[in-house]
């Protein structure tokens, strides 16, 4: 290689390094702020309005919104030691599994008031974001006179013909629904009889349309594409608010929660803890619940909410309510997930 060639190559490499370096410099120069990651849509809009904006007003710390939550990304950030997210909204079964895998910072309960929180929705590494129910939703215009009442009705394709829709991803909910529909009593659900659940699901498999996002579930129901199925109660609430006629049965509603976590090595750990305190405060939880139709995890919030809204929250439908067992799911998440996706693809 001649000298001039060497120089040319060296210059070219230096030039490219400059370009890449300039990009990194810009990123580093941005001002101090925390990054909050959630699932987008109407839920994150409410989190921004009811948690982030009051938080910034009080502390002067800006909150950048990012999303959607991606467990793969979270793991990659923690492993590479370059954690861009400070607070992340995740499903409860993932929160439990991630804590076990060492992906999360412990919560600082000197800052967050643990005493105010519903003990079902707080752990050493996660605080509740909100709690929701999977409920039976249906489109009265498509189904006609008869209204379905419980999960067995959803599996009854003779009485209620048409497609039915369920949550697509491997998560607590659908397997429990199949077992309940098959006659398993609520207190005998766990440990899940997976063989029995999949066998029950096989009976309606060709009638299932899966929803992967909340928006998709709303579209399927409102259009009558799938006039019956399993929904997040907040999404049905939002549909009703927008003037759609929606049927809801709270019989055997299944509660689960989203949790707020701080990834291990988050750059603004202290500010993140302050944000968690704001998000789980009685006021923050009350205003978010009012806007979203999800239930507050702070036991003092209900008193702060309008009566008619509070009456429609999951915590008012406890008579046949079933708590999905997050500890069981955290322990069996991988094994069930593999089987779930293999069954779907079959």
């Amino acid at each position, binding site marked *: 290689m001649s000298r001039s060639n060497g120089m040319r190559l060296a*210059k*070219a490499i230096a030039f490219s390094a400059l370009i*890449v370096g300039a990009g990194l410099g810009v990123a580093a120069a941005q001002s101090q702020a925390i990054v909050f990651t959630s699932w987008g849509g109407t839920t994150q809009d409410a989190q921004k309005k009811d948690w982030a904006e009051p938080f910034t007003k009080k502390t002067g710390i800006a909150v950048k919104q990012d999303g959607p939550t991606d467990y793969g990304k979270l793991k990659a950030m923690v492993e590479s030691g370059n954690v861009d997210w400070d607070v992340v909204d995740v499903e409860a079964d993932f929160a439990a599994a991630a804590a076990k895998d060492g992906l999360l910072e412990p919560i600082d309960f000197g800052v967050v008031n643990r005493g105010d929180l519903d003990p079902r929705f707080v752990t050493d590494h996660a605080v509740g974001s909100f709690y929701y129910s999977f409920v039976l939703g249906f489109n009265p215009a498509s189904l006609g006179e008869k209204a379905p009442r419980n999960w067995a009705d959803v599996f009854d394709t003779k009485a209620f013909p048409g497609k039915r829709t369920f949550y*697509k991803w491997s998560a607590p909910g659908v397997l429990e629904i199949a077992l309940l529909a098959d006659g398993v009593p609520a207190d005998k659900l766990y440990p899940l009889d997976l063989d029995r659940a999949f066998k029950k699901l096989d009976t309606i498999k060709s009638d299932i349309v899966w929803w992967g996002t909340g928006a998709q579930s709303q579209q399927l129901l409102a259009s009558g594409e799938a006039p019956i199925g399993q929904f997040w109660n907040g999404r049905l609430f939002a549909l009703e608010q927008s003037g759609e006629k929606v049927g809801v049965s709270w019989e055997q509603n299944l509660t689960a929660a989203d949790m707020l976590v701080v990834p291990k090595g988050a750059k603004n750990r202290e500010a993140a803890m302050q944000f968690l305190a704001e998000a789980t405060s009685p006021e923050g939880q009350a205003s978010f619940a009012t806007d979203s139709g999800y239930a507050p995890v702070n036991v003092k919030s209900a008193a702060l909410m309008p009566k008619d809204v509070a009456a429609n929250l999951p915590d008012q439908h406890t008579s046949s309510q079933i708590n999905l067992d997050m500890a069981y799911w955290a322990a069996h998440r991988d094994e069930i997930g*593999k089987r779930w996706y293999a069954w*779907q*693809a079959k």
Partner: protein
Amino acid sequence: MTLSHAAHVPSPARPRRLPAGLAAVTPAFALVAVVFVLPVLALLLRSVLEPEPGLQNYAAFFASTTYLKVLGNTFLVAATVTVATVLLGFPVAWFLAIAPGFWSRLLFAVVILSMWTNLLARTYAWMVLLQRTGLINRTLMNLGLISEPLPLINNLVGVTIGMTYIMLPFMILPLHATIRSIDPSVFQAASLCGASRWQAFTRVMLPLTATGIAAGALMVFVMSLGYFITPALLGGTSNMMLAELIAQLVQSLLDWGLAGAAALVLLVVTLAIYAVQLRFFGFGQARS
């Protein structure tokens, strides 16, 4: 190929200088190396290191009938879409090449415009058209042509329709370039020599456009192999493609070893197809 070629060329005069223009492409190469090659290598390394060193991820992939079925689906969809784009794209490319200026420009604008529209928006538009309560089914039912909605979505039909539409420009553009470069007088010559229209098409047109078809088909096939959004939205879970499986493994199951193995299988197969293509249709010099 270049090696065997070089062996036949007496090479005392082979320049030792770096090829001209290397400096100009170095930034692009550096960027690709940093943001593409390194992460891909890292993921592939995981496939032989996680959860412990060895080939267990590959063994698991090939031992699972589900994963093999997903791999088969991937090829089935990619092949179907490729054939469909050739059949639909050829007449369009031909029309673009011979139509008078205004019509050709108009159609060209339609083809390009559809490429510029957001992919997600286009896929959702297909959902609205294809679903059971969608425009197509409702129209057919109102006309009394069918009594039950046709299953056009959440299955192979939906994926094929949606992806064919999205891939069409990638077939039309190279094909159009090839057809335009054909001297129109060869068709006159063919008909003067007594060729029927069919013969002119099969004996003159097709051989002359073969490289264009091959280039378009390769692009469409390879892009389809790794496609994600459209199959995820228009397909059902029982015709899942490999990209969706990899996304599940990475995002939901956090099993990156197996995801890396699946990605490598896809990459190897894609490169193999590319090599075969170069061998038979090579872009210029590969055929010797």
